[in-house]
């Protein structure tokens, strides 16, 4: 029993492998043929593609010559990706291309659109070439379609990723710019805050201030909140904590420009006024900071 059962199994496995091997071999054979065809008709297909691009009014932000130059490189990397079945080079090219064209306002649908157009143009040329041999056409398309879809996918994903990277970079830049810690004198920092403070921004503000105190060896910090209309209880508490944490680093904090609403909030949460050093406006704050640091500002002459 066992012997009879095992013998067809033993025979079966290699045959199956063999079939698969010949199939993939046939597939790469077809891809080779396909690539040869695409290389041969490079000029004609490329021109047809560029024609279709301008027909459908894609990439309007670019000149005709630019489109043609990019189309040539895309076409060549496309054929190369089909030939080698590796997508790294194409991926790198797509990223590089995205980097160049995103600042010029090229949209996602345009990039996806042109790659799909190329796929269609090439598919049409295959139809034309193999119209007499329907079987072969089918097999060629079997080989072509998965690779072509993967290429379209790679380019689209590359473009979107590059866009996201740019957005992330900008977000970071905005966040950093929104809380500048500035040194106005030796050991004196000012931190002007403008706009709405949410808990996340408050946290970041504290982090940047404490780090700033350390790197600049500051002794006095003026936090100016003239540009903040109101803050909720959480953020007000956070402000008080920031003042205390700065003291632990050996720096005195002077808060200036409290609006009546913020004063109300601080009174409501019952802030210890012995810990909070507040002055009416930024000028007064800086003057007091200078006194604390032992500076004396003298007028040398009458202003002209």
């Amino acid at each position, binding site marked *: 029993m066992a012997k009879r059962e095992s013998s067809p199994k033993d025979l079966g496995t290699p045959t199956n492998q063999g079939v698969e091997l010949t199939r993939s071999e046939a597939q790469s054979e077809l891809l080779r043929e396909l690539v040869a065809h695409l290389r041969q008709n490079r000029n004609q297909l490329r021109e047809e593609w560029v024609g279709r691009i301008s027909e459908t009014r894609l990439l309007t932000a670019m000149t005709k010559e630019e489109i043609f130059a990019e189309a040539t490189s895309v076409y060549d990397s496309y054929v190369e990706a089909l030939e080698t079945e590796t997508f790294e080079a194409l991926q790198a090219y797509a990223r590089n291309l995205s980097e160049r064209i995103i600042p010029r306002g090229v949209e996602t649908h345009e990039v996806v659109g042109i790659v799909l157009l190329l796929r269609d143009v090439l598919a049409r040329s295959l139809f034309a070439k193999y119209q007499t041999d329907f079987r072969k056409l089918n097999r060629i398309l079997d080989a072509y379609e998965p690779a072509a879809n993967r290429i379209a996918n790679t380019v689209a994903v590359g473009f979107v990723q590059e866009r996201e990277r740019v957005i992330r970079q900008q977000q970071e830049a905005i966040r950093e710019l929104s809380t500048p810690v500035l040194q106005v004198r030796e050991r004196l920092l000012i931190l002007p805050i403008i706009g709405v403070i949410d808990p996340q921004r408050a946290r970041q503000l504290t982090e940047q201030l404490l780090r700033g*105190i350390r790197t600049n*060896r500051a002794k006095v910090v003026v936090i100016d909140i003239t540009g903040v209309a109101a803050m909720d209880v959480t953020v007000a508490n956070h402000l008080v904590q920031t003042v205390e944490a700065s003291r632990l680093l*050996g720096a005195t904090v002077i808060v200036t420009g409290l609006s009546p609403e913020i004063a109300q909030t601080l009174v409501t949460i019952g802030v210890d006024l012995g810990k909070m050093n507040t002055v009416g406006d930024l000028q007064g704050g800086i003057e007091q900071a200078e006194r604390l640091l032992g500076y004396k500002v003298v007028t040398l002459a009458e202003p002209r």
Partner: protein
Amino acid sequence: MEVPILKQGDVLIATFQAALSDADLNQLRRGLVQQVVKHRSRGVIVDVTAMDVMDSFASRTLREIAHMIRLRGAETVIVGIQPEVAFAMVQLGMTLEGVATALDLEEGLAYLIQKFKSVE
């Protein structure tokens, strides 16, 4: 690990090496409070630069050390609290009120010298 206490002129300096056990902290408190009178020191600097976490016991001990040394006739300054540690301490309500703090050893010494001058 025991905290070494160094003497530099009128000042005693204790530098935390790493995270300390509660017993080490108690020993440090005993040592500092004893030696401040023995050496007739006028100031004490506790350097916590190496600590990247500060639990409530350590923070309470630091405060007690400062207050006890004040009662023994000298000034204490805590130096080198890391920014992250400082904010964590404040959030947990451990603000070391009534205790002088400074950025680092250099600042702490400058603070004490200033303080000595104002007394003279």
